[in-house]
Protein backbone atom coordinates (compact mmCIF):
# COMPACT_ATOMS: atom_id res chain seq x y z
CA UNK A 1 0.00 0.00 0.00
CA UNK A 2 1.15 3.53 -0.77
CA UNK A 3 2.75 5.54 1.98
CA UNK A 4 1.55 8.91 3.24
CA UNK A 5 3.96 11.20 5.02
CA UNK A 6 2.61 12.87 8.17
CA UNK A 7 4.50 15.76 9.75
CA UNK A 8 4.42 15.46 13.53
CA UNK A 9 3.73 18.50 15.70
CA UNK A 10 5.06 17.77 19.17
CA UNK A 11 6.51 19.55 22.17
CA UNK A 12 9.50 17.69 23.61
CA UNK A 13 8.03 14.36 22.60
CA UNK A 14 4.41 15.09 23.56
CA UNK A 15 2.42 14.74 20.33
CA UNK A 16 -0.27 17.36 19.85
CA UNK A 17 -3.79 16.21 19.11
CA UNK A 18 -4.04 17.58 15.53
CA UNK A 19 -1.24 15.22 14.51
CA UNK A 20 -3.20 12.22 15.79
CA UNK A 21 -6.20 13.49 13.80
CA UNK A 22 -3.95 13.63 10.73
CA UNK A 23 -3.13 9.94 11.18
CA UNK A 24 -6.86 9.14 10.98
CA UNK A 25 -7.12 11.05 7.69
CA UNK A 26 -3.83 9.64 6.39
CA UNK A 27 -5.14 6.08 6.72
CA UNK A 28 -7.86 6.92 4.20
CA UNK A 29 -5.28 7.52 1.49
CA UNK A 30 -2.43 5.17 2.42
CA UNK A 31 -0.12 3.88 5.13
CA UNK A 32 1.00 6.66 7.47
CA UNK A 33 4.73 7.27 7.84
CA UNK A 34 5.35 9.92 10.49
CA UNK A 35 8.22 12.41 10.60
CA UNK A 36 9.17 13.80 14.02
CA UNK A 37 11.93 16.39 14.38
CA UNK A 38 13.93 17.92 17.20
CA UNK A 39 14.28 17.21 20.90
CA UNK A 40 12.15 14.28 22.01
CA UNK A 41 11.43 13.11 18.45
CA UNK A 42 12.04 9.43 19.25
CA UNK A 43 9.68 9.61 22.24
CA UNK A 44 6.75 10.32 19.92
CA UNK A 45 6.98 6.86 18.35
CA UNK A 46 4.78 4.84 20.69
CA UNK A 47 1.76 7.14 20.54
CA UNK A 48 2.15 7.52 16.77
CA UNK A 49 2.27 3.73 16.40
CA UNK A 50 -0.89 3.35 18.50
CA UNK A 51 -2.65 5.66 16.04
CA UNK A 52 -1.54 4.02 12.82
CA UNK A 53 2.02 5.01 11.96
CA UNK A 54 3.71 2.05 10.26
CA UNK A 55 7.02 3.86 10.46
CA UNK A 56 8.34 6.82 12.44
CA UNK A 57 11.21 8.78 10.93
CA UNK A 58 13.12 10.88 13.41
CA UNK A 59 15.85 13.48 13.17
CA UNK A 60 17.40 15.70 15.79
CA UNK A 61 19.90 18.50 15.37
CA UNK A 62 20.38 21.89 17.02
CA UNK A 63 19.32 23.55 13.76
CA UNK A 64 15.66 22.62 14.33
CA UNK A 65 15.43 24.80 17.43
CA UNK A 66 18.03 27.46 16.63
CA UNK A 67 16.76 28.55 13.22
CA UNK A 68 13.30 29.30 11.86
CA UNK A 69 11.30 26.93 9.63
CA UNK A 70 13.85 26.10 6.90
CA UNK A 71 15.70 23.24 8.69
CA UNK A 72 12.32 21.52 9.07
CA UNK A 73 11.66 22.00 5.35
CA UNK A 74 15.03 20.40 4.59
CA UNK A 75 14.10 17.41 6.76
CA UNK A 76 10.65 17.04 5.23
CA UNK A 77 12.20 17.15 1.77
CA UNK A 78 14.66 14.42 2.80
CA UNK A 79 11.72 12.35 4.06
CA UNK A 80 9.82 12.81 0.78
CA UNK A 81 12.88 11.60 -1.10
CA UNK A 82 13.31 8.62 1.25
CA UNK A 83 9.66 7.53 1.24
CA UNK A 84 8.16 8.61 -2.14
CA UNK A 85 4.75 9.22 -0.54
CA UNK A 86 1.42 9.69 -2.34
CA UNK A 87 0.74 12.74 -0.19
CA UNK A 88 2.28 14.86 2.55
CA UNK A 89 0.00 15.94 5.39
CA UNK A 90 0.95 18.77 7.76
CA UNK A 91 -1.04 20.33 10.62
CA UNK A 92 -2.44 23.77 9.68
CA UNK A 93 -0.58 25.73 12.33
CA UNK A 94 1.09 28.96 11.26
CA UNK A 95 4.45 27.21 11.15
CA UNK A 96 3.01 24.05 9.61
CA UNK A 97 1.62 26.02 6.69
CA UNK A 98 4.95 27.78 6.13
CA UNK A 99 6.84 24.47 6.17
CA UNK A 100 4.33 22.87 3.81
CA UNK A 101 4.38 25.78 1.37
CA UNK A 102 8.15 25.89 1.08
CA UNK A 103 8.30 22.12 0.66
CA UNK A 104 5.66 22.25 -2.09
CA UNK A 105 7.47 24.78 -4.25
CA UNK A 106 10.76 22.98 -3.69
CA UNK A 107 9.53 19.57 -4.79
CA UNK A 108 7.42 21.01 -7.63
CA UNK A 109 4.09 20.23 -5.99
CA UNK A 110 0.87 22.09 -5.52
CA UNK A 111 -0.55 22.82 -2.09
CA UNK A 112 -3.97 22.89 -0.48
CA UNK A 113 -4.15 24.53 2.95
CA UNK A 114 -6.63 24.45 5.81
CA UNK A 115 -8.46 21.30 4.74
CA UNK A 116 -11.31 20.38 7.08
CA UNK A 117 -11.69 16.88 5.66
CA UNK A 118 -9.83 14.53 3.35
CA UNK A 119 -10.83 11.52 1.28
CA UNK A 120 -9.26 9.31 -1.35
CA UNK A 121 -10.23 10.22 -4.91
CA UNK A 122 -9.54 8.70 -8.32
CA UNK A 123 -6.97 11.40 -9.06
CA UNK A 124 -5.48 11.52 -5.58
CA UNK A 125 -6.59 12.90 -2.23
CA UNK A 126 -9.54 15.29 -2.26
CA UNK A 127 -9.58 18.00 0.39
CA UNK A 128 -12.63 19.78 1.70
CA UNK A 129 -12.11 23.45 2.54
CA UNK A 130 -14.40 26.23 3.62
CA UNK A 131 -14.29 29.60 1.87
CA UNK A 132 -15.62 33.12 2.30
CA UNK A 133 -16.09 33.03 6.05
CA UNK A 134 -17.30 29.44 5.80
CA UNK A 135 -20.28 30.37 3.63
CA UNK A 136 -19.00 27.97 0.94
CA UNK A 137 -17.58 24.46 1.03
CA UNK A 138 -15.13 23.54 -1.71
CA UNK A 139 -13.46 20.32 -2.82
CA UNK A 140 -9.90 20.74 -4.03
CA UNK A 141 -7.05 18.64 -5.34
CA UNK A 142 -3.38 19.09 -5.97
CA UNK A 143 -2.85 18.53 -9.68
CA UNK A 144 0.91 18.54 -9.86
CA UNK A 145 3.57 16.65 -7.95
CA UNK A 146 3.10 14.98 -4.58
CA UNK A 147 0.00 16.55 -2.98
CA UNK A 148 0.97 18.70 0.01
CA UNK A 149 -2.07 19.29 2.20
CA UNK A 150 -2.38 21.10 5.52
CA UNK A 151 -5.28 20.14 7.76
CA UNK A 152 -7.03 22.18 10.43
CA UNK A 153 -7.45 20.88 13.98
CA UNK A 154 -10.72 19.06 14.78
CA UNK A 155 -11.06 17.82 11.19
CA UNK A 156 -11.15 14.13 12.12
CA UNK A 157 -11.57 11.95 15.20
CA UNK A 158 -8.54 10.56 16.97
CA UNK A 159 -8.74 6.78 16.52
CA UNK A 160 -6.68 3.95 17.90
CA UNK A 161 -5.24 1.85 15.06
CA UNK A 162 -2.20 -0.02 16.30
CA UNK A 163 0.60 -0.32 13.74
CA UNK A 164 4.26 -1.29 13.74
CA UNK A 165 5.69 2.19 14.24
CA UNK A 166 9.18 1.11 13.31
CA UNK A 167 11.57 3.89 14.31
CA UNK A 168 14.23 4.94 11.80
CA UNK A 169 16.65 7.81 11.96
CA UNK A 170 16.41 10.04 8.90
CA UNK A 171 19.69 11.56 7.72
CA UNK A 172 19.16 15.27 6.97
CA UNK A 173 21.52 17.56 5.09
CA UNK A 174 20.82 21.22 5.70
CA UNK A 175 20.47 23.70 2.84
CA UNK A 176 22.35 26.97 2.56
CA UNK A 177 19.17 28.80 3.64
CA UNK A 178 18.69 26.70 6.78
CA UNK A 179 20.59 29.04 9.06
CA UNK A 180 19.22 32.27 7.57
CA UNK A 181 16.88 33.23 10.40
CA UNK A 182 18.26 32.85 13.91
CA UNK A 183 15.99 32.22 16.88
CA UNK A 184 17.73 34.41 19.48
CA UNK A 185 15.42 33.42 22.30
CA UNK A 186 12.24 31.50 22.93
CA UNK A 187 9.83 32.22 25.76
CA UNK A 188 7.23 29.50 26.23
CA UNK A 189 3.71 30.82 26.55
CA UNK A 190 2.56 30.59 30.13
CA UNK A 191 0.15 27.73 30.46
CA UNK A 192 -3.35 28.63 31.64
CA UNK A 193 -4.12 24.96 32.25
CA UNK A 194 -6.90 25.29 29.68
CA UNK A 195 -6.93 23.47 26.34
CA UNK A 196 -5.27 25.09 23.32
CA UNK A 197 -7.80 27.36 21.61
CA UNK A 198 -7.60 25.89 18.12
CA UNK A 199 -7.67 22.30 19.38
CA UNK A 200 -10.34 22.58 22.07
CA UNK A 201 -13.58 20.63 21.80
CA UNK A 202 -15.43 23.50 23.50
CA UNK A 203 -14.66 27.21 23.20
CA UNK A 204 -16.26 29.91 25.34
CA UNK A 205 -15.73 33.41 23.93
CA UNK A 206 -16.37 36.89 25.22
CA UNK A 207 -16.81 40.11 23.29
CA UNK A 208 -17.62 43.77 23.67
CA UNK A 209 -20.52 42.92 25.97
CA UNK A 210 -18.13 41.57 28.59
CA UNK A 211 -17.22 45.19 29.16
CA UNK A 212 -13.87 45.03 30.92
CA UNK A 213 -10.83 42.84 31.49
CA UNK A 214 -11.87 41.96 35.04
CA UNK A 215 -15.22 40.66 33.81
CA UNK A 216 -13.51 37.99 31.72
CA UNK A 217 -13.34 36.05 34.99
CA UNK A 218 -16.95 34.99 34.47
CA UNK A 219 -16.14 33.80 30.92
CA UNK A 220 -13.17 31.87 32.31
CA UNK A 221 -15.31 30.34 35.07
CA UNK A 222 -17.78 29.04 32.50
CA UNK A 223 -14.92 27.72 30.35
CA UNK A 224 -13.42 25.92 33.35
CA UNK A 225 -16.74 24.33 34.26
CA UNK A 226 -16.90 22.87 30.74
CA UNK A 227 -13.19 22.10 30.33
CA UNK A 228 -13.16 24.64 27.51
CA UNK A 229 -10.71 27.08 25.96
CA UNK A 230 -11.35 30.83 26.23
CA UNK A 231 -11.70 32.96 23.11
CA UNK A 232 -12.24 36.66 22.60
CA UNK A 233 -13.60 38.84 19.83
CA UNK A 234 -11.45 41.45 18.19
CA UNK A 235 -13.33 44.20 20.02
CA UNK A 236 -12.40 42.65 23.36
CA UNK A 237 -8.78 42.16 22.33
CA UNK A 238 -8.41 45.66 20.88
CA UNK A 239 -9.81 47.05 24.12
CA UNK A 240 -7.00 45.22 25.93
CA UNK A 241 -9.33 42.97 27.92
CA UNK A 242 -7.84 39.70 26.69
CA UNK A 243 -4.60 38.65 24.93
CA UNK A 244 -4.37 38.60 21.15
CA UNK A 245 -3.37 34.93 21.29
CA UNK A 246 -6.99 34.19 22.21
CA UNK A 247 -8.59 36.22 19.43
CA UNK A 248 -11.08 34.31 17.30
CA UNK A 249 -11.78 35.65 13.83
CA UNK A 250 -10.38 36.68 10.49
CA UNK A 251 -7.30 38.37 11.91
CA UNK A 252 -7.00 35.95 14.82
CA UNK A 253 -7.51 32.23 15.10
CA UNK A 254 -9.96 30.09 13.30
CA UNK A 255 -11.66 27.53 15.54
CA UNK A 256 -13.92 24.62 14.74
CA UNK A 257 -14.92 23.07 18.05
CA UNK A 258 -17.83 20.76 18.84
CA UNK A 259 -19.40 23.59 20.84
CA UNK A 260 -18.87 27.35 20.58
CA UNK A 261 -20.43 29.65 23.15
CA UNK A 262 -20.38 33.36 22.22
CA UNK A 263 -21.09 35.75 25.07
CA UNK A 264 -21.60 39.42 24.40
CA UNK A 265 -20.45 39.03 20.79
CA UNK A 266 -22.60 40.59 18.08
CA UNK A 267 -21.22 38.37 15.32
CA UNK A 268 -19.60 40.65 12.73
CA UNK A 269 -18.51 38.84 9.57
CA UNK A 270 -14.87 39.00 10.69
CA UNK A 271 -15.71 37.06 13.83
CA UNK A 272 -17.98 34.63 12.01
CA UNK A 273 -15.10 33.84 9.64
CA UNK A 274 -13.24 32.36 12.59
CA UNK A 275 -15.98 30.25 14.18
CA UNK A 276 -18.71 29.52 11.67
CA UNK A 277 -17.61 25.91 11.14
CA UNK A 278 -18.19 25.10 14.82
CA UNK A 279 -20.54 22.13 15.09
CA UNK A 280 -22.92 23.55 17.68
CA UNK A 281 -23.17 27.31 18.23
CA UNK A 282 -24.67 29.00 21.26
CA UNK A 283 -24.95 32.74 21.88
CA UNK A 284 -25.85 34.93 24.81
CA UNK A 285 -26.49 38.57 23.93
CA UNK A 286 -28.69 41.42 25.13
CA UNK A 287 -29.47 42.51 21.59
CA UNK A 288 -32.07 40.24 20.01
CA UNK A 289 -31.11 41.69 16.60
CA UNK A 290 -27.42 40.69 16.87
CA UNK A 291 -26.34 38.84 13.69
CA UNK A 292 -24.82 36.04 15.79
CA UNK A 293 -28.37 34.78 16.43
CA UNK A 294 -28.64 33.90 12.71
CA UNK A 295 -26.02 31.20 13.30
CA UNK A 296 -27.06 29.69 16.57
CA UNK A 297 -28.46 26.34 17.48
CA UNK A 298 -29.49 27.87 20.79
CA UNK A 299 -29.55 31.52 21.73
CA UNK A 300 -30.40 33.37 24.90
CA UNK A 301 -31.46 36.99 24.61
CA UNK A 302 -30.41 38.37 27.95
CA UNK A 303 -27.77 39.94 30.14
CA UNK A 304 -24.64 37.81 30.09
CA UNK A 305 -23.86 38.90 33.67
CA UNK A 306 -27.01 37.02 34.72
CA UNK A 307 -27.03 34.17 32.24
CA UNK A 308 -23.37 33.11 32.24
CA UNK A 309 -22.92 32.71 36.03
CA UNK A 310 -26.24 30.86 36.24
CA UNK A 311 -25.12 28.53 33.46
CA UNK A 312 -21.75 27.99 35.18
CA UNK A 313 -23.45 27.11 38.47
CA UNK A 314 -25.79 24.73 36.71
CA UNK A 315 -22.94 23.01 34.86
CA UNK A 316 -20.97 22.63 38.10
CA UNK A 317 -24.02 21.29 39.91
CA UNK A 318 -24.77 18.75 37.21
CA UNK A 319 -21.14 17.64 37.15
CA UNK A 320 -20.95 17.40 40.93
Amino acid sequence: MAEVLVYVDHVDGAVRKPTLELLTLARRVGEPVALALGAGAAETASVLAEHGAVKVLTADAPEFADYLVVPKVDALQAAVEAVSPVAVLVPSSAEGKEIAARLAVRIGSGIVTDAVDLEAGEQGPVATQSAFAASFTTKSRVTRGVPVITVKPNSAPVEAAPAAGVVETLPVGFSAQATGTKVLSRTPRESTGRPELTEAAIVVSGGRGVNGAENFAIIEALADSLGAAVGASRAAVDAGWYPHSNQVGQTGKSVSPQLYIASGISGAIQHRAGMQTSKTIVAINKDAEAPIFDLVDYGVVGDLFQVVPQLTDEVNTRKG
Partner: protein
Amino acid sequence: MSLRIVVCVKYVPDATGDRHFADDLTLDREDVDGLLSELDEYAVEQALQIADGADDAEITVLTVGPEDARDALRKALSMGADRAVHVEDDDLHGTDVIGTSLVLARAIEKAGYDLVISGMASTDGTMGVVPALLAERLGVPQVTLLSEVSVEGGVVRGRRDGDSASEQLEASLPAVVSVTDQSGEARYPSFKGIMAAKKKPVESWDLEDLEIEADEVGLAGAWSAVDSAAQRPARSAGTIVKDEGEGGRQLAEFLAGQKFI
Protein backbone atom coordinates in the same frame (compact mmCIF):
# COMPACT_ATOMS: atom_id res chain seq x y z
CA MET B 1 22.99 53.64 0.86
CA SER B 2 19.36 53.53 0.12
CA LEU B 3 17.19 50.85 1.73
CA ARG B 4 14.89 49.44 -0.91
CA ILE B 5 11.64 48.16 0.59
CA VAL B 6 9.02 46.33 -1.47
CA VAL B 7 5.62 45.95 0.17
CA CYS B 8 3.38 43.24 -1.30
CA VAL B 9 -0.30 44.09 -1.02
CA LYS B 10 -3.49 42.48 -2.17
CA TYR B 11 -6.76 43.87 -3.41
CA VAL B 12 -9.46 41.76 -1.82
CA PRO B 13 -13.25 41.58 -1.95
CA ASP B 14 -14.95 43.36 0.92
CA ALA B 15 -15.77 40.64 3.45
CA THR B 16 -19.00 42.36 4.40
CA GLY B 17 -20.25 41.94 0.81
CA ASP B 18 -21.87 38.85 -0.65
CA ARG B 19 -18.93 36.86 -1.99
CA HIS B 20 -19.40 33.93 -4.31
CA PHE B 21 -17.77 31.82 -7.01
CA ALA B 22 -17.93 32.34 -10.76
CA ASP B 23 -18.66 29.45 -13.15
CA ASP B 24 -14.97 28.57 -13.39
CA LEU B 25 -14.80 28.36 -9.57
CA THR B 26 -12.64 31.45 -9.25
CA LEU B 27 -13.80 34.40 -7.21
CA ASP B 28 -16.68 36.26 -8.84
CA ARG B 29 -15.46 39.85 -8.79
CA GLU B 30 -18.40 41.34 -10.68
CA ASP B 31 -20.66 42.31 -7.82
CA VAL B 32 -18.21 42.75 -4.99
CA ASP B 33 -16.43 45.89 -3.94
CA GLY B 34 -12.73 45.51 -3.32
CA LEU B 35 -10.24 47.19 -1.06
CA LEU B 36 -6.67 46.99 0.21
CA SER B 37 -6.51 43.90 2.43
CA GLU B 38 -6.65 45.21 5.97
CA LEU B 39 -3.76 43.00 7.05
CA ASP B 40 -1.56 44.57 4.36
CA GLU B 41 -2.14 48.04 5.82
CA TYR B 42 -0.01 46.90 8.76
CA ALA B 43 2.75 45.97 6.31
CA VAL B 44 2.62 49.42 4.71
CA GLU B 45 2.71 51.01 8.17
CA GLN B 46 5.79 49.04 9.24
CA ALA B 47 7.51 49.89 5.95
CA LEU B 48 6.86 53.58 6.58
CA GLN B 49 8.25 53.33 10.11
CA ILE B 50 11.34 51.44 8.97
CA ALA B 51 11.88 53.99 6.18
CA ASP B 52 11.57 56.82 8.72
CA GLY B 53 14.34 55.26 10.77
CA ALA B 54 16.65 54.77 7.77
CA ASP B 55 19.04 57.35 6.33
CA ASP B 56 17.54 56.92 2.94
CA ALA B 57 14.80 54.54 1.89
CA GLU B 58 12.43 53.97 -0.96
CA ILE B 59 9.14 52.09 -0.60
CA THR B 60 7.70 50.34 -3.62
CA VAL B 61 4.25 48.90 -3.20
CA LEU B 62 3.52 45.90 -5.41
CA THR B 63 0.34 44.09 -6.30
CA VAL B 64 -0.77 41.39 -8.72
CA GLY B 65 -4.38 41.61 -9.78
CA PRO B 66 -7.02 42.95 -12.15
CA GLU B 67 -7.42 46.59 -13.13
CA ASP B 68 -9.30 47.50 -9.94
CA ALA B 69 -6.33 46.35 -7.86
CA ARG B 70 -4.83 49.75 -8.64
CA ASP B 71 -7.11 51.07 -5.87
CA ALA B 72 -5.09 49.10 -3.34
CA LEU B 73 -1.89 50.69 -4.66
CA ARG B 74 -3.42 54.17 -4.47
CA LYS B 75 -4.33 53.62 -0.85
CA ALA B 76 -0.77 52.52 -0.02
CA LEU B 77 0.67 55.49 -1.93
CA SER B 78 -1.62 57.87 -0.07
CA MET B 79 -0.35 56.39 3.21
CA GLY B 80 3.17 57.34 2.11
CA ALA B 81 4.73 54.71 -0.18
CA ASP B 82 6.93 56.22 -2.90
CA ARG B 83 6.06 54.29 -6.02
CA ALA B 84 3.85 51.44 -7.13
CA VAL B 85 4.03 48.46 -9.45
CA HIS B 86 0.91 46.79 -10.76
CA VAL B 87 1.33 43.37 -12.38
CA GLU B 88 -1.66 42.90 -14.61
CA ASP B 89 -2.20 40.35 -17.36
CA ASP B 90 -5.32 38.57 -18.65
CA ASP B 91 -3.43 35.29 -18.45
CA LEU B 92 -3.18 35.65 -14.66
CA HIS B 93 -6.87 34.87 -14.15
CA GLY B 94 -7.21 31.88 -11.82
CA THR B 95 -3.55 31.76 -10.73
CA ASP B 96 -3.05 29.71 -7.56
CA VAL B 97 -0.79 30.58 -4.64
CA ILE B 98 2.26 28.85 -6.13
CA GLY B 99 1.87 30.83 -9.36
CA THR B 100 1.21 34.05 -7.47
CA SER B 101 4.42 33.61 -5.52
CA LEU B 102 6.32 33.14 -8.81
CA VAL B 103 4.91 36.37 -10.24
CA LEU B 104 5.57 38.31 -7.04
CA ALA B 105 9.12 36.96 -6.73
CA ARG B 106 9.99 37.94 -10.31
CA ALA B 107 8.46 41.38 -9.84
CA ILE B 108 10.34 41.90 -6.55
CA GLU B 109 13.62 41.00 -8.26
CA LYS B 110 12.87 43.32 -11.16
CA ALA B 111 11.94 46.18 -8.80
CA GLY B 112 15.10 45.66 -6.73
CA TYR B 113 14.91 45.07 -2.98
CA ASP B 114 16.66 44.80 0.34
CA LEU B 115 13.53 44.08 2.34
CA VAL B 116 10.16 42.61 1.36
CA ILE B 117 7.25 43.20 3.73
CA SER B 118 3.75 41.79 3.57
CA GLY B 119 0.77 41.19 5.79
CA MET B 120 0.51 37.86 7.63
CA ALA B 121 -2.23 36.63 5.27
CA SER B 122 -4.77 38.03 2.86
CA THR B 123 -8.23 38.53 4.26
CA ASP B 124 -9.82 36.58 1.40
CA GLY B 125 -7.77 33.40 0.85
CA THR B 126 -6.30 33.57 4.40
CA MET B 127 -3.67 30.95 3.53
CA GLY B 128 -0.77 32.90 5.05
CA VAL B 129 1.88 31.15 2.97
CA VAL B 130 2.95 33.79 0.42
CA PRO B 131 5.73 35.31 2.60
CA ALA B 132 7.31 31.88 3.16
CA LEU B 133 6.98 31.07 -0.55
CA LEU B 134 8.66 34.35 -1.47
CA ALA B 135 11.57 33.63 0.87
CA GLU B 136 11.93 30.18 -0.67
CA ARG B 137 11.85 31.52 -4.23
CA LEU B 138 14.12 34.49 -3.55
CA GLY B 139 16.54 32.37 -1.50
CA VAL B 140 16.58 34.86 1.39
CA PRO B 141 15.67 34.51 5.09
CA GLN B 142 12.03 34.61 6.16
CA VAL B 143 11.28 36.59 9.29
CA THR B 144 7.56 36.10 9.44
CA LEU B 145 4.49 36.70 11.59
CA LEU B 146 6.12 39.50 13.52
CA SER B 147 4.29 41.57 16.09
CA GLU B 148 7.34 43.81 16.43
CA VAL B 149 9.92 44.58 13.77
CA SER B 150 13.03 46.74 13.49
CA VAL B 151 15.80 47.17 10.94
CA GLU B 152 19.24 48.43 11.82
CA GLY B 153 22.64 48.10 10.17
CA GLY B 154 21.46 45.63 7.56
CA VAL B 155 19.86 43.33 10.14
CA VAL B 156 16.14 42.75 10.69
CA ARG B 157 14.92 41.73 14.13
CA GLY B 158 11.46 40.92 15.32
CA ARG B 159 9.19 39.07 17.71
CA ARG B 160 7.09 36.16 16.52
CA ASP B 161 4.25 35.17 18.84
CA GLY B 162 3.45 31.55 18.14
CA ASP B 163 0.91 29.19 19.67
CA SER B 164 3.27 27.79 22.25
CA ALA B 165 6.09 30.33 22.49
CA SER B 166 7.21 33.83 21.70
CA GLU B 167 10.45 34.00 19.71
CA GLN B 168 12.99 36.74 19.08
CA LEU B 169 14.28 36.42 15.52
CA GLU B 170 17.16 37.91 13.60
CA ALA B 171 18.30 37.79 9.98
CA SER B 172 20.57 39.72 7.66
CA LEU B 173 19.12 41.63 4.73
CA PRO B 174 17.94 40.94 2.14
CA ALA B 175 14.98 39.24 3.81
CA VAL B 176 11.24 38.68 3.64
CA VAL B 177 9.19 39.92 6.58
CA SER B 178 5.51 39.50 7.36
CA VAL B 179 3.72 41.36 10.13
CA THR B 180 0.59 40.69 12.16
CA ASP B 181 -2.16 43.09 13.16
CA GLN B 182 -0.36 43.44 16.49
CA SER B 183 2.57 45.25 14.85
CA GLY B 184 1.03 48.68 15.22
CA GLU B 185 -2.07 50.53 14.09
CA ALA B 186 -1.93 51.58 10.44
CA ARG B 187 -2.13 55.32 9.79
CA TYR B 188 -4.97 56.94 7.89
CA PRO B 189 -3.97 58.71 4.69
CA SER B 190 -3.92 62.47 5.19
CA PHE B 191 -5.48 64.84 2.68
CA LYS B 192 -1.95 65.86 1.73
CA GLY B 193 -1.05 62.19 1.29
CA ILE B 194 -4.05 61.58 -0.92
CA MET B 195 -3.20 64.57 -3.12
CA ALA B 196 0.48 63.59 -3.30
CA ALA B 197 -0.44 59.99 -4.24
CA LYS B 198 -2.04 61.23 -7.45
CA LYS B 199 1.36 62.37 -8.70
CA LYS B 200 3.28 59.24 -7.71
CA PRO B 201 4.26 56.80 -10.46
CA VAL B 202 2.34 53.54 -10.94
CA GLU B 203 4.14 51.22 -13.32
CA SER B 204 2.27 48.46 -15.05
CA TRP B 205 4.05 45.20 -15.85
CA ASP B 206 2.75 42.14 -17.64
CA LEU B 207 3.95 38.53 -17.81
CA GLU B 208 6.31 39.31 -20.67
CA ASP B 209 8.02 41.99 -18.57
CA LEU B 210 8.63 39.32 -15.92
CA GLU B 211 9.69 36.65 -18.42
CA ILE B 212 6.92 34.31 -17.31
CA GLU B 213 5.15 32.09 -19.83
CA ALA B 214 1.35 32.15 -19.85
CA ASP B 215 1.16 28.41 -19.11
CA GLU B 216 3.11 28.84 -15.86
CA VAL B 217 0.21 30.76 -14.33
CA GLY B 218 -3.57 31.12 -14.66
CA LEU B 219 -6.17 28.45 -14.11
CA ALA B 220 -4.53 26.04 -16.58
CA GLY B 221 -1.09 26.49 -15.02
CA ALA B 222 -2.30 26.06 -11.44
CA TRP B 223 -0.81 23.23 -9.36
CA SER B 224 -4.08 22.75 -7.53
CA ALA B 225 -7.70 22.75 -8.66
CA VAL B 226 -11.06 23.46 -7.10
CA ASP B 227 -13.43 20.75 -8.33
CA SER B 228 -16.60 22.00 -6.70
CA ALA B 229 -17.95 24.81 -4.56
CA ALA B 230 -21.24 24.59 -2.75
CA GLN B 231 -22.93 27.23 -0.67
CA ARG B 232 -23.21 25.97 2.87
CA PRO B 233 -26.79 25.13 3.60
CA ALA B 234 -28.33 27.81 5.75
CA ARG B 235 -28.38 26.69 9.35
CA SER B 236 -31.83 25.59 10.37
CA ALA B 237 -33.27 28.22 12.64
CA GLY B 238 -32.07 27.66 16.17
CA THR B 239 -34.04 27.93 19.37
CA ILE B 240 -33.92 31.42 20.80
CA VAL B 241 -35.23 32.15 24.26
CA LYS B 242 -35.54 35.41 26.15
CA ASP B 243 -33.99 35.32 29.58
CA GLU B 244 -36.64 35.81 32.22
CA GLY B 245 -34.51 34.62 35.08
CA GLU B 246 -34.00 31.05 33.92
CA GLY B 247 -31.94 31.62 30.75
CA GLY B 248 -28.76 30.07 32.14
CA ARG B 249 -30.56 26.98 33.41
CA GLN B 250 -32.48 26.60 30.14
CA LEU B 251 -29.18 26.78 28.27
CA ALA B 252 -27.69 24.16 30.61
CA GLU B 253 -30.66 21.92 29.81
CA PHE B 254 -29.96 22.33 26.08
CA LEU B 255 -26.24 21.57 26.56
CA ALA B 256 -27.06 18.50 28.65
CA GLY B 257 -29.43 17.30 25.90
CA GLN B 258 -26.56 17.65 23.43
CA LYS B 259 -24.31 15.68 25.83
CA PHE B 260 -21.92 18.58 26.41
CA ILE B 261 -22.46 18.34 30.15
